[in-house]
């Protein structure tokens, strides 16, 4: 009954080698979010989509991009991963953007060698 599914669970990439993380949802929610969470830190919002409208956080590095080809899927592309990009990447959804709780996936743990 998984509702927000992230693949892969663990991803290892090399410094500078592009990597894509994926997220799918079965909730038919309008809003999808990507968060970055480093050890013992708060989740940090990278960007979110309301339907197909893309919203980029002001401090999200240009190295990070996202695609949402349809309601169910969202991708996080890291064009040239650096050592500082090693983190847990969390995908979340909500039905609407106001007053709505977030449903999180289990995350993708990214390692950069």
């Amino acid at each position, binding site marked *: 009954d998984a509702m927000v599914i992230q693949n892969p669970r663990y991803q290892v990439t090399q410094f500078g080698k592009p990597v894509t993380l994926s997220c799918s949802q079965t909730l038919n929610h309008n809003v999808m979010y990507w968060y970055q969470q480093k050890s013992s830190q*708060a989740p*940090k919002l990278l960007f979110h989509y309301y339907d197909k409208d893309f919203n980029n956080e002001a401090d999200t590095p240009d190295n990070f991009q996202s695609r949402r080809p349809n309601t169910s899927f969202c991708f996080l592309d890291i064009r040239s991963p650096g050592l500082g990009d090693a983190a847990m990447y969390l995908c979340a959804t909500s039905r609407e953007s*106001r007053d709505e709780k*977030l449903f*999180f996936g289990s995350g993708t743990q990214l390692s950069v060698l």
Partner: protein
Amino acid sequence: EDQVTQSPEALRLQEGESSSLNCSYTVSGLRGLFWYRQDPGKGPEFLFTLYSAGEEKEKERLKATLTKKESFLHITAPKPEDSATYLCAVQAENVYTGNQFYFGTGTSLTVIP
């Protein structure tokens, strides 16, 4: 600047020893305060939403309360399975980017049998 602060960072309790976790916030245009539980290596799981000062919500051994400046998560007679990181998030109105979630860094709770 909008901010969410959680304390303590870590808490160790004996099984059955009740305690409280704190989340203080300084945001304008509060829309809601959310509590999540996060197990190691997993995404956060929703617990409660509180919308106005004086509101309380309960679920099993957990009770969340809200004032105008802070929220408490009370844990009554905790069990080892309550061990997790508890995250607080505040949703606030942002005139430029819509409704934003601000997460605290969490309280890591360990309940010892």
